[in-house]
């Protein structure tokens, strides 16, 4: 099952390839448009319409692809109809998270609901690995439902960090180190193991 490391790794590769193609195309165009032997040429309208068709196809395909390949999208869509195996009610106030327990222990493959309530400002709720990479996040808006459902498939220990700015003393100062632990999986999240620091 893909996690954020796999998804972002694929994104890095795809976007880098695209960037190289885009830069090469403009470099080729710049050479060609000033080439002394170059002759004016006209593009057929059919080429233009074909190009627009490709743009539409790409724009739609990205979302269809991610819906099918990124596991948390479907869970997010259906979170109202999936029964949570574990629910953690968390509150935030005065730039501080209050957890139901000192450490939230999660059983592998359980459907877990994080229900975060802000008593004052807009915050963020994110889980980060030991190497500071991001696993998941959501916004925490006061007087609004802030629930995210997740399924963990790897063992690991994660930090809770506010991912939204809430004043000069929000952000990284709102960090609960090693506050979430996933146990019972066959596989370890190698970047989230305590010894992986």
């Amino acid at each position, binding site marked *: 099952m893909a996690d954020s490391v796999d998804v972002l790794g694929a994104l890095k590769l795809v976007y880098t390839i695209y960037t190289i193609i885009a830069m090469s195309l403009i470099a080729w165009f710049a050479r060609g448009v*000033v080439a002394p032997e170059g002759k004016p*040429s*006209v593009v057929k309208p059919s080429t233009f319409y074909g*190009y627009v068709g490709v743009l539409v196809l790409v724009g739609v395909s990205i979302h269809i692809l*991610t819906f099918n390949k990124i596991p948390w999208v479907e869970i997010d869509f259906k979170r109202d109809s999936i029964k949570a195996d574990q629910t953690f009610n968390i509150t935030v106030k005065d730039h501080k998270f209050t957890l139901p327990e000192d450490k939230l222990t999660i059983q592998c493959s359980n459907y877990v609901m994080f229900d975060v309530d802000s008593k004052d400002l807009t915050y963020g709720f994110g889980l980060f690995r030991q190497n*500071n990479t*991001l696993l998941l*996040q959501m916004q925490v808006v006061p007087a609004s439902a802030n629930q995210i459902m997740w399924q963990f498939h790897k063992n690991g220990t994660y930090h809770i960090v506010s991912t939204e700015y809430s004043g*000069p003393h929000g*952000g990284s100062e709102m960090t609960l180190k090693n506050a979430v632990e996933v146990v019972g999986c066959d596989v370890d999240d190698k970047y989230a193991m305590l010894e992986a620091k």
Partner: protein
Amino acid sequence: MSFIKTLIQGNEGGLNADGLTPTQKVTLRAVIVGVLYYGLCAIEGMLMRAHAITPLELLEENSHYFSVMTVHPIVGIFGSTYLIVFGAFTFLVPHLMGKPLYSVKLANATWIFIAVGALMSWLGGFIFHYAPLYTLYWPLPVDFKQYDAVGGLVFIVGIAVIMLGTLGFIYNIFATVFYTEEGHEKRAIKPLIISGLGIDGFLNIWYKMTGREPYSKEPAVSLPVVAIFRGTIDTFLDALVILTCGILILIYIVGDMAGMPMDYTAVNALLYKNFFWWGLDLIADGLVLIYVAGTWYLLAMLISGKKLFMQNIARAALLLELVVSWFVWSHHLLGDQGQPNMMKLVSGEMVTAFELVTQGIAVFITLVTLWSARPLKMTMPLKFLLAGILGFMLAVPAGILQADMGLNRVLHNTQWIIGPHVHVAILVGLTMTLYSAMYILWPTLTNDVKLWSNKLANFHFWGQLIGGIGMGAFMGMAGMDGMLRRTLYLNGEYETYMMLAGVCGALLLAAWFAFLFNVVMSIGIQGLIGIFTPSKLKTRDLVPKAQTAE
């Protein structure tokens, strides 16, 4: 000529400010102040970047650091970009319509209001450390446990003054399109509105499909003006939204200062966020993209000397872009779980994906128009135009990728958003397009002052291009490794990326300085001062008569 003499008098005699018309002067004033604000923005950016590498004593207090972060986009977007764009359009719209600007006085008031407003907002951050960031998420801007209400007052009044200046620009542009100049036969409003909105483009396509003669062979409004007209509709809506939010915040500020603090829970934070992003996004996904497309079309026509490829499609696409820009704001709320999934899917993902199509069309039409005139000379305007196109070719797909419910879960609020998307779009896409326009308008606006150094202009080009793309790339890599965009890291977590981004940032700053220096050496300090003195030519003509005759 000695260096000092050139510095004072300009290159080969420099700029004769006495020979500038009022319209030339007001355009140059706005652009020059905009370029200076760009420099302030770049310096702020470098300060923050340096602080992320080695903590600076100057920014030791978090409140100071975040107040710089708060004013950075205000200075960049309004102080710099708005002024440069508004200044250029103040000249271009009457130029393309073939009639004088509706009001030079109003144009002067516009740039002064925006410049003063940007300065006030900057002071709100600099003196009072007011730091709710430009996003102003409710109730942060009225959290007086964290911020001084006086700072909020100065900052918000500054924004309001900017918006008033913006309304002045909007009025002047629409008035210039619609008014009938003295001695001219009364201009009919209907064809101007139909053409300004681009409806004639749709009708021409429809008439062709049904085998009829075109609805309009000679549109009443030229294509670049159509883009400016459309973009200005978004500018108007955006100004209304920002003013409304400003008034709301002001009410709370005044209440607090009067000793009658009000309950901030009276405003629903999610509803406010939707309203605010709807308006704010009309800048990023509305007027910027539309203005840029229009500027590309104009530049392509001027550089190639040809008519635009697929004109009717371009006109129709601009209208589509306007409508698209009204329905995309939910991509900023993909991480908000209270936001209905259907809004995230339709507005946040699907309608947003249309920006790939509309911007892609603009890229294609511009490139094909240029190609149709081969061989061209690689001039500064062409060079900067191609770089501007590349900037959007990189930044728009980055935006489409993050406007995805799956990817947004791990990209939202990271450096990816602000690096490969925002900074590449602004610094490479938008700014290099604006520089292209500046270089092409330079002879017309300065009455043919010769540029002091082509080498410096080339350094400016490469510095801006490599610095902009490089900085965006390293920020993006840090973002993919989990670095958040509005969080201060002082323990060396992402040091390597930040150092590399810092080198690119320094290159950007050097490029700006090279440009500014080249401009000053070309027109001379005397000419520069002369731009800000009243015009001696009592004329409504855009350029002096002698230049027109040539």
